[in-house]
Structures are given as C-alpha cells and as structure tokens.
C-alpha cells in the first residue's frame, strides 16, 4: 500500500511539475466544455440558407418564402434554376427551392427542393425543418379552403331548413283549403226541386204577384241549381290539389334528406377535416432539453476517450523513455503494482477532468445532476474512463516511440468515434458491422451515460452494457500486465 501510494505521489508530482501537462489536464476539458456548451446550448438551426427560383413568383410562393425567412432560414432569390442547384454544390446555399411558375393552389406542379445528400448530418435536419415550414403554410391554405367549404354547407343547411319549413307551411295551407272546399261542398249537397213549387202554384192557382214570385223563385232555384252543378264540377279540382300537396310533401322529404345528410356530417371542425389524424411528438426526455443536453453524454465519453487514451499512453511513453524506468524494473516491486499505480494515477487525472467538466457544465448551462443518478453515473463514467485508460496504457507499452503511439491513439479513437452514433447513426452501417460496432466501448459508455443522464435509468436497466464494459476492463488489465512484461524485454533490446 505504501508503495502504491508512493507511485501515485510520484506520478502526480511529475504531472504537476510539468506546467504544460497540468495546464492541459485542467484547461483542456474546461475549454472544450465551454465552447461546446456555448455552441450547442440551443434547439435551433442557424444560418441555413435557402436559394429559391421561379419563372414567375406568385403571391403563394412569396408567402411560402416569407414563412421560411420568418424562421431561422435566410432565403435568397436566385436568377436561374441551374445557379440555384449549383449553389448547393458550392455550399452557398443548403437547399434550393424551385417554385412552379405562378404557383397557386390550383397548380398541378410540385415545389421542388434540391439538397446535397453528401452532407448527411445536415440534410435531413434541414429538409425536415423546411418541410415542416412548407407544411405549415400548406395547412394554413387548406384550413382556409375547408373553412369556406364548411361555411357554404352551413349556409345551405340553414337555407334548406328555412325553405323546408315554408314548403311545409304551404302544404298545410293547401290541405286546409282542400278541406274547407270539401266541407263547403258537402254543405252544398242539397236537392233543389223548383218543379214541385210550380206544380203547387198551379194547384193553388196562384196568380199575380205570388205567381211572379214563385216564378222568380223558381228561376233563382234554377240558377242556384246551375251554379251548384258548376261548383260540384269544380270539386273535381280538389284531387288536383291533393296531387300538388303530395308533390310538396315529396319536396319536403327531399329537403329533409338533404338536411339529414348535411347533419350527418359529424366532423365540422376545420382543423379536424384538414388533418383528421393528429400527431403530437412528445419527447421522452425533458422538454427544455437543448442540443447540449442531448450531446452531453457523447461529449463526456469523447473527453474520456481522448483524455484517457492520450494521458495514459503519454504517461506510459514518458515512463518508458524515463531514465528511471530501468531502476523501476530492477526494484523488488511487482509489475502489477506499477500497472495498478499508473492506472490509478491516470484515472485520478481523468476524474479531475471529469470534475472540471461537470463544474463547467453547472456554471455554463446551470445543468445539475439529480442525486438519484449520481452513483450510477460515477460507476459508468469511471468504468468507461478505465477502459480508455487501459487501452492507452496498452498502446503506450506496445509502441516504441511517442509519435507512433500518438498515431495509434488517433487511429483507435477515430475508429471508435466513426463506428458510433456520433458521426452517423449506427443504423446506416451494414448489419454485421453494426452488430460488431455494438461492442464498441465508446457506444457502450455513451449509451449507458445517455440512459442515466437523460432517462435516469437504474444500473439494472443498463446491466448488459455494464457487464460488457466490466469484461473489457478485466481483459484489458490482464493484457496491460502481460504487455508491460514484454515491453521490458523490448526495452532492453
């Protein structure tokens, strides 16, 4: 234990004596986190340039462009389609939008967006953003059209209701008239026999005024009889009224049917007609998360990767090139103790860097770590750092010079970085490569940290990653021990 402490003390003293090393150890991560937290502490895209071209800009195309420039995009009208497309190639614009001539809602042509798919990390973000803006405009137009349509239907409905009630009233009136006529006719159904009256007048030998009166009466009765006959003849028209009433009732039925159909339209909200299926994207992480929050786990692992590999490989290389290396070898101190001592020293340095990062994170972005995840966070961070440190030590012992060792560090770090989700999603890789890349300590570490930091995952939820990392640790430690023994021989040669 005394020896281990002395090795640690010696390593820390050597580090602090070298001002530049100490400065890099402390200021390196601080600078990194400062820059990244400032740069990524946002949810927006900046300075995205859209080139546009149209043979004839219409109010609609202008309004779409306005919509785009109202957000984070800079829209620039270009003089030709070719210039617009070429501007993407020269990276002057990120997207080229070609609007059909005189774009209107009746246009059958599409708006064309040209993008440079070689900028894979940007193109989908930009496209998504542009599409969402255009889609917003399209929804606005659709809403307006649907709204007009619905208003017309509503107005028709009310007119139909109004007409329907009038017609119903007309039908009722006609029925009433028909009934009245029928009643009147039934009252008029009496027999007027004037001949009997004449016979009586003859029998009574009524002459003079009485006879004249009877004659007049008889005449009146005859006229009445004639009128009655005529009226009864007109009664046949009642059946025509009935037929008309039936027609009116058919019309009422049709209007009712129209009204019923209009009323049967259940969805009358414009928004529901425009987009009947509503989607809402909800994040599983905190709503106020920024790019920095999302990138922090990866950022942390990148710092662990580079500092772990570089610090440990450099420390081993310095130890190997140190004049004291020989004396260390001949002292009665085991290989394992030197390896453990150097490993812990490197780990302390990396832990110091991690503390600086967390402190900087707290200062610059006010982000704090919930106490509940602290233990898991520490375990995974230290385990991940340990693996990178052991890889760095391995490189240090395997390679003969600082230059080759640094090259090896850069190569290994690049491989780990490329075969991770940092540059391209793993899903873009060939399935076999993807399954192998899944064992990349960088991925294991960053995914575990992401789950802990963003979703407060317990250790049991990341047990697979944890055991694989633990396995790496054991294997690498044994390898470092063996390689240190071999490096002793190579040192002599």
């Amino acid at each position, binding site marked *: 234990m*005394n*020896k281990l402490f*002395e090795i640690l*003390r*010696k390593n820390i*003293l*050597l580090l602090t*004596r*070298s001002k530049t090393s100490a400065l890099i150890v402390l200021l390196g991560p601080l600078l990194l986190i400062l820059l990244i937290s400032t740069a990524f502490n946002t949810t927006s895209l900046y300075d995205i340039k859209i080139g546009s071209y149209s043979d004839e800009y219409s109010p609609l195309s202008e309004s779409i462009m306005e919509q785009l420039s109202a957000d984070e995009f800079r829209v620039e009208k270009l003089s030709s389609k070719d210039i617009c497309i070429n501007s993407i190639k020269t990276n002057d614009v990120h997207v080229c939008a070609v609007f059909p001539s005189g774009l209107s809602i009746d246009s059958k042509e599409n708006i064309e967006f040209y993008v440079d798919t070689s900028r894979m990390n940007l193109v989908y973000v930009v496209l998504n953003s542009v599409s969402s803006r255009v889609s917003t405009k399209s929804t606005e137009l659709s809403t307006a059209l649907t709204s007009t349509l619905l208003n017309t239907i509503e107005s028709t409905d009310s007119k139909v209701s109004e007409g329907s009630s009038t017609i119903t009233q007309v039908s009722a009136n006609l029925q009433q008239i028909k009934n009245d006529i029928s009643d009147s006719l039934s009252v008029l159904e009496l027999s007027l026999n004037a001949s009997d009256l004449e016979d009586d007048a003859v029998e009574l030998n009524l002459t003079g005024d009485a006879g004249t009166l009877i004659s007049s009466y008889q005449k009146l009765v005859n006229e009445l009889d004639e009128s009655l006959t005529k009226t009864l003849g007109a009664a046949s028209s009642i059946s025509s009224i009935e037929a008309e009433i039936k027609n009116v009732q058919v019309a009422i039925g049709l209007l009712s049917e129209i009204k019923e159909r209009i009323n049967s339209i259940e969805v009358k909200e414009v928004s529901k007609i425009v987009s009947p299926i509503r989607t809402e994207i909800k994040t599983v992480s905190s709503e106020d998360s920024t790019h920095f929050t999302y990138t922090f786990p990866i950022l942390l692992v990148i710092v662990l990767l580079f500092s772990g590999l570089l610090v440990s490989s450099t420390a081993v290389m310095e130890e190997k090139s*140190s*004049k*004291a*290396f*020989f*004396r*260390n*070898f*001949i*002292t*009665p*101190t085991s290989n394992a103790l030197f390896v453990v001592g150097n490993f812990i020293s490197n780990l302390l340095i990396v832990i110091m860097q991690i503390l600086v990062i967390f402190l900087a994170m707290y200062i610059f972005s006010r982000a704090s770590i919930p106490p509940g995840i602290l233990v898991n966070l520490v375990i995974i961070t230290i385990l991940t750092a340990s693996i990178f440190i052991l890889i760095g030590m391995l490189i240090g012992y395997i390679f003969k010079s600082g230059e080759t060792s640094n090259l090896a560090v850069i190569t290994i770090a690049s491989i780990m970085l490329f075969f991770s989700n940092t540059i391209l999603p793993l899903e873009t890789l060939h399935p076999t490569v993807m399954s192998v890349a899944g064992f990349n300590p960088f991925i294991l570490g960053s995914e575990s940290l992401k789950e802990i930091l963003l979703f407060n995952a317990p250790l049991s939820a990341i047990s697979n990653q944890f055991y694989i990392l633990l396995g790496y640790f054991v294997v690498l430690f044994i390898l470092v021990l063996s390689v240190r023994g071999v490096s*002793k021989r190579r040192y*002599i*040669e």
Partner: protein
Amino acid sequence: MNPPLIQFQNITKIFNKKVILDNVNLDIPYGEIFGIIGKSGSGKTTLLSILVGFLKPERGKVFFQSQDLSRFTNNIRQQFGFTAQEGSFYPNLTVRENLEYFGTMYNVPSFILRKKIPEILKLVNLAESENKLAAFLSSGMKKRLDIACAILHDPKVLILDEPTEDLDPILRKDILRLLKRINKEKNVTIILTTHLLDEIEYVCTRVAILDKRTVLVSGTASDLKDKYSKNQEIILQTYSGEYKWLMKLLEKNKLIEDMVERDGRLIIYSPKAEGMLRFILHELEKKNERVQDVDLNKPSLSEVFESLTQEDE
C-alpha cells in the same frame, strides 16, 4: 577459502540470434571493487543486466551467496544496487523525492527512510541540494544522486555500469573516491564496468577482461600485468629532448614493439626492456646525450588489455 559472493556459470545470452555472451564463467569475491573491462559491445552491460535479474540468460546460471538468482530473483534483488550508464532517476522530482520514491520501491520502511536519507545525502555530498530538482543538478551531482538511489536500501552489491562516462577528470576522481568510501564504510561489494582503464587501476582490487563474448582473464590488476603483458615500458627523458635520431635507429629493431614521443619524453615498449635499455643508454653515451630521467615500468593495464584483445584477434 570462502565461496565467491557472485558466480557466473556458463552464461550464454543471445539477442535476435546474435550471441552476446558465450559461456561466461566468472567469480566475484566478497568485499572487492571488481572492474569489468571490455570494448564497446563486448557484453559488459548485458552481463550486469543478467546479474540484477533484468535479463535472463539462455544458458547458465548466476549464483549469489550460492543461491540461484533465477529462483530467488525478487528477494535477491533487494541485495543489489544498480546504476546504469545514464542516471536512473526522475529529473522532475527533487533529490529527496527521488530517494523517498526509490527507497519505498526497495521496501525501505518510511521511518527508516527518514533517518537514512540525510545519512546517504551526506555520504554522497548532496545534503545541500536535497530540495533541488534532479534536472538542475550538475553531471557529477546527478551521478552521485544515482549512486545514492542505488545504495539507499543497503545493498550487499553495488553495480555500476560506466559510472564515470561523460564526466570530466575531476568529477571522475570524485566519483571513484566516493566508490572507495562506500566500499570501505558500508562494506559493499562493488562491480563496475568501464573502458577507461586508468580508473580500473585506480579503484579496482580485481579485474576481468571481457572480449569476444566471454571473459578472457580475471584477477588483480598486478597479476594480470605480470602474467599477460608482453612488453615493458621505458620512459626516457634527455636534456636535449631530441629523439628523432634514436627513433630512427630503433625503428628497425625487432625487439621494439612501439615508440611514442610525448611531453618531451620518449616511451618505448619492448618485450626485452632491460636489454633494450642498456642498448639505448650505450647509444646515448656514444652521442654524448645527457640523460635527465629514465624509468623502466611494468606494463599498464591498458597494455595488458590491448595485448590480450589484439592477441585474440
């Protein structure tokens, strides 16, 4: 007769199919200052590395106090102190920090170290520089610090590989005196390699000559001189200091091995030095040359070394 402290038995060491040491046999007695002489690349450092357990021989064994070193390496390591050609310490640690670190690595308990460090610093004359960074020490001080690191744990054997390499003559003498002092005061057997033969004669009680992958001879410097030198040296100084005529006269003489004029003296090497001296004095008398000083010496170790290694070639 006491058994030797260290015994190399039939040691053979091969690097990349190249034989560096071939069947080396050597005994190193207790309490001696033992010098190993050899040309560059003769395998001196390899031999010492095998002794401290840093290398393992392909064949043969090394015994320390009759114990096989390959079996007890870790325990026996404690009995050795080693200084390599270049100082084996951390330049960015102070003198004291280096001693504390290596003392601990050599299993010296901290309470003993606290007493021991001032004592060692005094012995190697670094007491006033204990808080100086090793990087800022002079060459001689660095060498003394290296020796201090090697003797801190009271080893029975102190091994030094080219201890005076790159030092000026005054510092060399300083280091050699220190070694004698350590040998005497701490009763430490010292084994050193060098190609500066004057030093060996000055400090070593026993010498081994290593050449062509093996030990050619070993013994006291005096024995070796007596046994292996073909020539003796005549050192002649005349008042006139004019030796050209004499050199011309002697150059065809088969009994003259070599001649050199240095600092107004003529040094002549001859296997029959006494007869040759008589002849030279006779010739000087004939020329009326007055002799200021004349000396007849045994050969130097350098001459023995040259004679043995050239003979071998």
